[in-house]
């Protein structure tokens, strides 16, 4: 992995700078303050992946077709709560309701492109990872960083502990 060289001709997109410039141009004087931390906690794995339980955590507003829990409900979404999606759900039954993606360049029609449930099941089948947690976790994007930090993140952690998770794959869309 270390030999992957950065593409210097097409550097990666600086979303923070781009959104700042965009909102200034739209007349917003106060730029959005992105979450910023100087350091991050770190815990090395305590056992091999082949014996570990892995959970998938997603902020893609992942939803299941024909499941009334995901009927459009602005209150549920705006509260920014945490919810479960059974790990047995077939990819074809999953979809995303998020608007926060590059609609010009890509599509959300294949859930595995942002919610890698099939590759994870394959990794279980091949013995690469021990097992998947019985449910994946969805987290609605909150408008408040304080709510994310004080309410949603602790709930994700509590759920991970309750279902005895060893490692989490987190995918923002």
């Amino acid at each position, binding site marked *: 992995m270390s030999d992957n060289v950065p593409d210097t001709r097409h550097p990666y997109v600086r979303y923070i700078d781009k959104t700042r410039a965009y909102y200034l141009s739209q007349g917003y004087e106060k730029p959005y303050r992105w979450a910023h931390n100087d350091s991050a906690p770190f815990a090395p794995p305590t056992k091999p992946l082949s014996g570990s339980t892995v959970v998938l955590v997603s902020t893609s507003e992942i939803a299941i077709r024909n499941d009334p829990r995901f009927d459009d409900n602005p209150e549920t979404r705006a509260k920014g709560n945490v919810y479960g999606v059974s790990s047995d759900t077939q990819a074809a039954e999953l979809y995303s309701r998020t608007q926060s993606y590059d609609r010009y360049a890509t599509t959300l029609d294949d859930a595995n492109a942002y919610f890698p449930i099939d590759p994870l099941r394959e990794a279980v089948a091949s013995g690469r990872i021990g097992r998947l947690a019985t449910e994946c976790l969805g987290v609605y994007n909150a408008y408040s960083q304080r709510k994310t930090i004080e309410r949603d993140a602790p709930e994700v952690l509590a759920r991970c502990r309750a279902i005895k998770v060893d490692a*989490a794959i987190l995918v923002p869309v």
Partner: protein
Amino acid sequence: MVIATARDIVESAAVARLLFVDFPLGSPCGEPWNVAQQRAVLDMALRLLETAAGPQATVEAGLRWSKGEGWKELIFTEAQPFLPGQAGDAWLKKKEAYRQMKAEGKI
């Protein structure tokens, strides 16, 4: 273990391990329908999970978007506003619903 396309945002927030996939927002785990690539992305993530020695480790997946890099030039431009038309309306509706619930003390 985070898999993401918005490298600067995730690095600003600071996470233990980031696999950076230089793809448009919406496809952090590989291009839609590209099963082999999606498998490779997860494999890179699992390897980073196993091998990272300390926090804030970013690894580049080293993948290139198959239709070229043009998408990078067009983000947040007049030609391609982030939330055009209906999507923008839906976003404003959600924001307004949130404001109203907050005002009513529901959240």
